[in-house]
C-alpha cells in the first residue's frame, strides 16, 4: 500500500474515499492544528496519513475486540495449538520438549500404557454417554411435552424446579449422590431395606459402580432439554395444529407428525451438547469414587488428569486430550449429518 509520490490521488481503501481523506489535506490539517508532522523519507507523510486513516476507520473496532482477542489468543488458542505439539513430544518440566520418534509414540503409549487402561476408559465413557444422552433426550422431550399444555405460570414453575439442581455444581450434586449411595447409611440402601433386599455396595463393587454413577446421571432431570424443547414447541405456529384438527388428528398423531419433526433442530443441538458433556464426565466420578474402583470408573478425562498430573507424562496426557477432541468433533459431525433437517417454518 506504500505510495511513493505524495501528490498522487489516494488509492481507494474499501470504497472511494471523500476528498478530505486525501493526504494533502491531511497534512494541511495537521499544520493548521499545529500537530507536528514527522518529516522523513519521501512518502513518509503519505504512509502516516494512510495509517491514520486506517486507525480512524478501524481503530475503535480493534480496540473493542483487543482485550478479548488477547486473552483468547494467550489462554485458549495458543494452548490448543501447543497441546497438539506436546502430544508428539516428550516433555520435561526442566528441559522442555523434544519430539518423539516415531512421531505417534505418545498416541501408541496412550493406548498400550498401563495394560491398555485408556481403551477401557473409552469404553466406560461410551457406555455412560449412550445411556445418559438417550435418557436425557427422552425425559426432556417427555417433560416438555407434558408441561406444554399447562398454564404459563405453572410451566414456569416446573421449568424453574427442574433447573434449580442444574445450577448447583455437578461436584456437589455428585457428592450428594455419593451419600445416597453410601453402603451403610445411604438412602438407596434404606429403600432396599424397606422392601427387604440385601444392601448393595453401590460405589465399591467394581461390577456395578459404573452403573450406579450412570444411573445417578440418568436420574438427574435434563433441565436444559426441558427448557429448550419447551421453547421450541412454543415457537410452532398454531395453524399447523388447527389444520391437523380439521383433518381429525388425535393428540398423539399431532405430536408425532407435527411437533416432533419441527423441533428437530433443537433435538440435534441438545444431542450434541449432551454428548459432549458426557464425553467430558469427570467431577461426578472424581467426587463419588475419589480413588477410583480399579478400572471400572476410569473415563477419558480421568485418564487425561491422571497421566498428566499424577504420572506427569505430559506428552501422553496431551495425546489423550487430542483424541478426546477428535472424538467429540467426529461425533458432532455424524450427529449433525444424521439429524440435520431442512424444515423451515
Amino acid at each position, binding site marked *: 500500500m506504500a505510495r511513493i509520490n505524495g501528490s498522487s490521488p489516494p488509492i481507494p481503501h474499501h470504497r472511494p474515499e471523500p476528498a478530505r481523506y486525501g493526504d494533502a489535506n491531511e497534512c494541511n490539517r495537521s499544520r493548521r492544528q499545529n500537530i507536528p508532522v514527522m518529516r522523513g523519507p519521501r512518502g513518509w507523510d503519505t504512509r502516516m496519513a494512510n495509517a491514520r486513516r486506517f486507525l480512524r476507520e478501524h481503530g475503535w473496532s480493534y480496540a473493542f475486540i483487543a482485550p478479548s482477542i488477547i486473552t483468547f489468543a494467550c489462554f485458549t488458542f495458543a*494452548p490448543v495449538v501447543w497441546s497438539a505439539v506436546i502430544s508428539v513430544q516428550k516433555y520435561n518440566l526442566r528441559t522442555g520438549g523434544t519430539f518423539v520418534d516415531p512421531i505417534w509414540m505418545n498416541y501408541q503409549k496412550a493406548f498400550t500404557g498401563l495394560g491398555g487402561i485408556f481403551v477401557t476408559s473409552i469404553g466406560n465413557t461410551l457406555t455412560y454417554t449412550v445411556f445418559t444422552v438417550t435418557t436425557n433426550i427422552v425425559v426432556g422431550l417427555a417433560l416438555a411435552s407434558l408441561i406444554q399444555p399447562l398454564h404459563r405460570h405453572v410451566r414456569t414453575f416446573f421449568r424453574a424446579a427442574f433447573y434449580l439442581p442444574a445450577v448447583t455444581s455437578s461436584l456437589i450434586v455428585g457428592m450428594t449422590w455419593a451419600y445416597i449411595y453410601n453402603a451403610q447409611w445411604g438412602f438407596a440402601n434404606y429403600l432396599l431395606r424397606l422392601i427387604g433386599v440385601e444392601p448393595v455396595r453401590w460405589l465399591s463393587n467394581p461390577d456395578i459402580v459404573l452403573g450406579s454413577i450412570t444411573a445417578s446421571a440418568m436420574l438427574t432431570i435434563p433441565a436444559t432439554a426441558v427448557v429448550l424443547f419447551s421453547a421450541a414447541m412454543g415457537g410452532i405456529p398454531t395453524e399447523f395444529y388447527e389444520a391437523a384438527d380439521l383433518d381429525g388428528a388425535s393428540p398423539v398423531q399431532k405430536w408425532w407428525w407435527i411437533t416432533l419433526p419441527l423441533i428437530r433442530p433443537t433435538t440435534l443441538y441438545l444431542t450434541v451438547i449432551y454428548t459432549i458433556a458426557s464425553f467430558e464426565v469427570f467431577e461426578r466420578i472424581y467426587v463419588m469414587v475419589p480413588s477410583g474402583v480399579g478400572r471400572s470408573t476410569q473415563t477419558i478425562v480421568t485418564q487425561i488428569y491422571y497421566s498428566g498430573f499424577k504420572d506427569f507424562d505430559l506428552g501422553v496426557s496431551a495425546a489423550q486430550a487430542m483424541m478426546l477432541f477428535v472424538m467429540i468433533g467426529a461425533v458432532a459431525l455424524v450427529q449433525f449429518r444424521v439429524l440435520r433437517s431442512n424444515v423451515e417454518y
Partner: protein
Amino acid sequence: MTTTAGARPRTGPIGMTVTRSVVTWSVLMVTTVIALFPMYWLFANALTPITATPPLTPILVPAWELDNVIRLLTTSKHYTRWVVNSLTVSLAATLWHVVFDTLAGYAFAKRRFPLRNVLFVALVSTLMVPIHVTFIPLYLISLSLGIIDSIWAILLPASSQVFGIFLMRQFIQTLPGELEDAARIDGCSEIGVVRHVIVPLSMPAIASLAIFTFVRNWNDFLWPLIAVNRPQEFTLTVGVASLQGEFMTDWGIIFAGGAVASIPIIIFFLLFQRYFLDGLRLGALK
C-alpha cells in the same frame, strides 16, 4: 396463553381428559420430587446435628439447627477463605466478560474491519474444543509466569472463555442499525454509541451473560484442582471436595460444607431465574 402452540384443545369424553390430566400431574409431581430430592436431602442432613456417622434411618425432616455449620466454620481453617476466593474469581470473571464481551460482540456484530471474519471463526471454532486440551499448556504457562498455586492461575484462563462473545454477537446482530447511526449523527462518540445505544438495548443478553459466567466460574472444578495446591488458595468446589478427606469421621461437617457452598448459587438462581431460562435460549441460537 390459550393460543400457545401445542396447547391441545381438550376434545373427547370428559373422563378421558380427567384421566389424562391426573396422569400428567402425577408424572410431573414425581419428577419434581426426584429432581429436588438430592439437594433437599443434603440440606436436611446439614441442618440436623450429626457428629459422626449419620443414622441408619435417613434424616428426611431437618431439625433446623445450625450445629454442623457452626462446627464447619470453626473447625475448617480455610472455609471462609474458599468462599472469598470463589467470590473473587466469579465476580472478576463476570465483570471482565460483561464489559469486554459486550464490546467484542458489538464489534463482531455491527462493525466491519479487516480480519473480522477470520478472527470470529477462530473464536467460534474453539467453542467445541474440550477445555481439557488446554490444561497442560496452561499449566506450563502458569508455571513460567510464576502464578501457579495462586488465584491468578484461575483468573487468567477464566478471562479467555469465548462463549460470551458469541452470545453477545448473536444478540446484538438482531438490533436495528438505525439507532446507532442516529446516535452518531447526534454527535455520539463510538464509546457513547456502545454506552447509550447498545448496552441499554442488550440488557437481557448482558444479564444472561453475567449469570452464566458467574455460575460457570463458581462451579468450575478441574482446572482449579490442577492449578492450586495450597489449601488457602482453593476455590470453594476444590475445598469442599477436600473436606471428605479431611473430616473422614465427622459427616455433619461434610454435609454442611456441601450445603453452604450451594446456597449462594441457589439464591442467585431464584433471584434471576427468568434471565437464566432466557439465556439458555439465546445461547442455543446456532
